[in-house]
């Protein structure tokens, strides 16, 4: 489905031009996301972050990119050649394809797909393949461990992610992302589906393997995980994929939950304001992700899987059932919102109270010094 007027009247040329614009913007955004993350993490840790290259270190990412392109492209001798070399591209393609359907302003995206929401998470499922290829092809045990962890984690967290999005699609009654945004003209869906937003944000952190779910790429445990053997341009492909996925996910979250370009006053104030709204909301989500990274320590893999299979999936199914009752009997949206807020507060409260509980392991800390105390 095309938007109003294709450039030069040719459909595929129009798609190509729009795609080039989106990818160009994406590259620039990724450059400054890396810079922004380093700067932000620096501030969180009471240091300055990059500050030498250019004014306030603004050219740091470009310097890094030039350095990475100049580096030697190493390949281990026991690596599986084609799997190893294609893995970065296989990881990047799904992220690139997602950008096709995201609406950035009213009727402005690459393509307006009728099944946009479903398209996004169908394609996202392929994201794991590149990581698995990197893990299998590197001929390195750390890479293999990272790949196994990434696969287990991403397959598990895809379920709550998809179900929380379906809950929103139920309320919206459509899968077209452009129409979903239009429906949020007066109130963003986060106000009536806060629990779905909490589940989505958690699953998003896990799908992007950002802290506290950065188990597949944990430096201190498996020294970088699946991209341990990569260097130079191929490693920078992985880096590009990671930040492009972060940006695409944030735009997606902003579109589905925060009202995209429509809320507030999106329709009245024109396309400049709409573009600003989309970008601002996505950067707000990215800021939240980086804030989490600076604040929360990494989980263990068993805690991670338990949290997904024993908590998130049940809660998201419950959410679907509650939504179903409200929509079937046509109960008021305000009450639906209130019930969801109550659910979200109880959920966060339970997770928080579980998080701050006194660990049983703490009794053993330091007990090697006086062995009598070791038996509680």
């Amino acid at each position: 489905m095309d938007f109003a007027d294709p450039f030069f009247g040719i459909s595929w040329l129009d798609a190509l031009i729009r795609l080039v614009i989106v990818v160009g913007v994406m590259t620039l955004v990724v450059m400054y996301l890396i810079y922004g993350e380093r700067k932000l993490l620096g501030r969180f840790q009471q240091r300055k972050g990059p500050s030498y290259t250019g004014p306030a270190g603004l050219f740091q990412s470009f310097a890094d990119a030039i350095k990475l392109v100049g580096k030697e492209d190493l390949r281990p001798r026991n690596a599986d050649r084609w799997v190893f070399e294609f893995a970065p591209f296989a990881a990047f393609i799904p992220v690139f394809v997602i950008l096709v359907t995201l609406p950035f302003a009213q009727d402005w995206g690459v393509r307006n797909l009728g099944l946009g929401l479903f398209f996004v998470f169908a394609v996202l499922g392929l994201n794991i393949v590149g990581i698995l290829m990197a893990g299998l092809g590197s001929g390195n045990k750390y890479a293999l461990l990272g790949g196994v962890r990434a696969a287990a984690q991403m397959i598990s967290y895809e379920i709550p992610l998809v179900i929380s999005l379906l809950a929103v699609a139920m309320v919206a009654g459509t899968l077209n992302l452009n129409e979903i945004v239009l429906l949020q003209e007066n109130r963003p869906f986060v106000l009536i589906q806060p629990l779905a937003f909490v589940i989505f944000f958690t699953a998003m952190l896990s799908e992007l393997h950002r802290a506290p779910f950065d188990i597949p790429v944990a430096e201190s445990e498996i020294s970088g995980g699946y991209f341990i053997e990569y260097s130079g341009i191929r490693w920078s492909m992985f880096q590009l994929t990671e930040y492009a996925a972060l940006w695409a996910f944030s735009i997606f979250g902003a579109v589905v939950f925060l009202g995209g370009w429509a809320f507030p006053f999106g329709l009245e104030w024109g396309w400049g304001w709409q573009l600003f709204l989309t970008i601002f909301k996505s950067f707000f989500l990215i800021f939240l992700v980086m804030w989490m990274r600076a604040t929360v320590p990494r989980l263990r893999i068993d805690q991670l899987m338990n949290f997904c299979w024993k908590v998130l999936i049940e809660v998201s199914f419950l959410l679907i059932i509650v939504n179903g009752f409200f929509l079937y009997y046509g109960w008021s949206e305000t009450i639906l919102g209130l019930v969801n807020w109550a659910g979200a507060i109880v959920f966060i409260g339970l997770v928080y109270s579980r998080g701050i509980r006194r660990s049983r392991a703490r009794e053993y800390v330091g007990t090697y010094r006086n062995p009598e105390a070791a038996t509680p």
Partner: protein
Amino acid sequence: MAVEVLWWLFAILIVGTALGVVVSRSVIHAAIFLLVALAGIAGMYVFLTVEFLALVQLLIYGGAVAVLVLLALMLTRQATGGERISLNGPQAPFAAIAAIGLAAILVASAVVTTWPRLVDDPDAVPLGRISEVLFEDFGATFILVSILLLVAVVGAIILARQEDAE
């Protein structure tokens, strides 16, 4: 015109990667070829204008089944990439006969059957109609299949956890 060219490209891609699955000497390569072939079939569904089915194909077969195959390979094999072993055993000729027989049966049944609608003139089925058929007309069947899958999952978990109990 452009659609025909794309269709042939996809057809060649699917057949080529399907051959790759069989011919490839490394199991990992075969699994990756399988994934590409399954994703290519999703492209074929787009040509038939059943986008929903295409996305389901991508989600289930591309995203889940192929990834599970890769994951199983990771967990069961030695942690090296490119070992090439001959996967052909003495049963190769019988396998060839079985494969040709199956292909003949499939092609014959596809040719003999009178299909309800021409592929040249498809009409897009709205998503609402699919869900009506699935959840209202065949609602009981849907629930039965769900229960079956649930039982299978629980059974698999119990079987996998058996060693802890002993």
